[in-house]
């Protein structure tokens, strides 16, 4: 029986990947007051954007990743402008349903252009190094590193910058924020772009770790949703913690039950945590 540490490490990497769309999902939910199910397809969009740059224009993956961040952010902005802005004052359910429609459209646009075949980035595959008895892969470290950096940047943005503070204010009370002169439209645009970029970046990681195909994002939506709820809607650190827990539990779960029940364990643990802390790990529900 291998040391559980290996599973925990694997789980941390999976969690790191999940954390990005989970944070985006959670923050956007709080700010715009509806769960945006298109976030998981932003993952797909980001992965393909990087593919175009990397396999198509032969850019190194790091540059392609940055390009993917920008491209997905732009797509998210466009989606918001076309689909969500006309519905700002509507009930959350209408927006949630519309976001599902958007997810359908995005996934099939990708399918229309690139077909169903899975693709891969133009990067060498390397065997994992053995570090203190753990197998640690180069990509895994890159992914973890990038995820941590993005998380730190997001937190700094929300805490330290004026726009970030404004974002939290708007999330807490949009009417009051508007009255006090916080530029809500700008806040939403920045949040949307940022959320899209985070999800797009995660998409590149998934594409790197596994493979790229139109269904890649959609398969993660439940885990993202669970991580966000677990962490408490509206809290970035919460979503991060939630994602890590979901990731670790899913990976370590293979020790206890057949791997096919991975998702099941995830849910059980989430319920257990919610039992102890009903509002999620760090969030407050208003």
């Amino acid at each position, binding site marked *: 029986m291998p040391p559980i540490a290996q599973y925990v490490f694997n789980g941390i990497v*999976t969690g790191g990947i999940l954390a990005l769309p989970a944070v985006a999902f959670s923050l956007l939910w709080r700010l715009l007051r509806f769960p945006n199910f298109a976030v998981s397809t932003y993952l797909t969009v980001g992965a393909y954007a990087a593919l175009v740059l990397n396999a198509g224009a032969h850019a190194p993956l790091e540059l392609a990743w940055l390009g993917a961040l920008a491209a997905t952010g732009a797509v998210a902005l466009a989606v918001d402008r076309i689909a969500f802005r006309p519905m700002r004052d509507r009930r959350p359910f209408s927006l949630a349903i519309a976001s599902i429609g958007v997810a359908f459209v995005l996934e099939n646009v990708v399918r229309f252009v690139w077909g169903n075949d899975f693709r891969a980035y133009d990067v060498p595959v390397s065997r994992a190094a053995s570090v203190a008895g753990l197998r640690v892969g180069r990509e895994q470290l890159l992914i973890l590193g990038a995820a941590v950096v993005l998380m730190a940047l997001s937190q700094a943005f929300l805490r330290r910058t004026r726009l970030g503070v404004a974002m939290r204010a708007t999330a807490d009370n949009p009417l009051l924020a508007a009255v006090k002169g916080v530029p809500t439209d700008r806040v939403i645009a920045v949040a949307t772009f940022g959320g899209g970029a985070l999800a797009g970046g995660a998409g590149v990681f998934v594409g790197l770790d596994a493979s790229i195909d139109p269904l890649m994002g959609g398969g993660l939506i439940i885990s993202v949703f669970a991580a966000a709820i677990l962490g408490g809607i509206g809290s970035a650190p919460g979503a991060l913690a939630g994602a890590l827990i979901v990731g670790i539990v899913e990976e370590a779960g293979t020790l206890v039950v057949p791997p096919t029940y991975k998702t099941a364990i995830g849910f059980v643990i989430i319920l257990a945590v919610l039992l102890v802390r009903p509002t999620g790990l760090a969030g407050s529900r208003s």
Partner: protein
Amino acid sequence: MTTMTRRQLLKSSAVTGLVLGAPAILLAQAKEPINIGTLCPLTGAGGSYGPDMQRSVVAVVDRINKAGGIHGRPIHLFHEDDQTSAEAGVRAARKLIDVNKVVAIVATWASAVTLAVRPLCVEAQVFLIGVSGADAVTQGDHKGYVARTQPNTKLQGSMYAKFVVSKKEWKRVAYLALQTPYARSFGDAFSGIVKSAGVTITDDLIYEDKKPSYRSEVTRILATNPDLIMLEGYTPDSVVMAKDIYKAGFKGAILAPSFAVNAKFIEGASAEVAEGIWNMDRAPLFDSPAYKEFSAAVPRSDTSPYAPQAWDQMSIVALALAAGKGEASGTVIKDHLRAVANPPGTAAYSFADGAKLLAEGKKINYEGASGACDFDAIGDILSAPFAVQQVRKGKSELVTVINP
């Protein structure tokens, strides 16, 4: 009085007859098309396999129609996407059967779709032929309206086992399979035979589809120290699995089906990861005229494992209809299927070959791009040799052939 010579009389009556009969002849030429449906996964989990299968069928039909159709009747194809879903497949099949009035549905892929659509076809006497692997596809009472060009799991399991046993250096084998309707059946057939030959099955793990990483499954498998991993999945998940196995530092061997480890796999996983992977499948008759014609007609055909089967399915259905002398129905196909596909008979490698021989009154035996295509009583492929390949320097090379 002009006296016509007999010749002139004959000639003029012939001309008169022709003129009077012309409308009837012209009407006969504008014959009713024969409707055939394809029901492939163009979206959903099987989406990477459907498009090529559909294209293969289209290529066959184009050739047939250009050469004048079946007894002068053109084939009219109707395409539907089953979305790799049983319910969507049923709705699509209902449309094909009731609205488009097809006499056959070809190129189905997912077992769940084939199983759900089967009762509809049997009831409507529409012929159903696909590549689905679940045992239930050909079991039970389908009255002869079902066939498949994919070897069943018992046959497959036994052939893989035979190869593994023949390689004496593999004493510890782990079975790693994608969750499909035939994974268990194949695993049991395979394990049963290798175990009785003294090989240890170190682990038996079935994994879920569409996961972004399989690191923990791999960790578990590798902890049991296998010499060989028997990887039974499809290309998309096999790529991810193979990459994870490689990254985890596994130095042993991997055996997988060739329909998973094909050119697309090598492209997706990288030549480095794919190097040395053993793969096997029913031996396509690479040197046969059928395969040559198929690969010329269907571009990038070496990357589509099911495309040769779809090609054969359409060709066989067309030949069975041709043998039926102009009447088109699922029953005609059912009645003539084995007559055109099984020995004895003159070998026919394409519809054109076969139709010509049939017109001469000969008995034919279609030998296809995917194999000999001989069907048993319940619609399964009779046992066939399996080709074993190994990926070397980015390409799969034939190493040996396992005979049943």
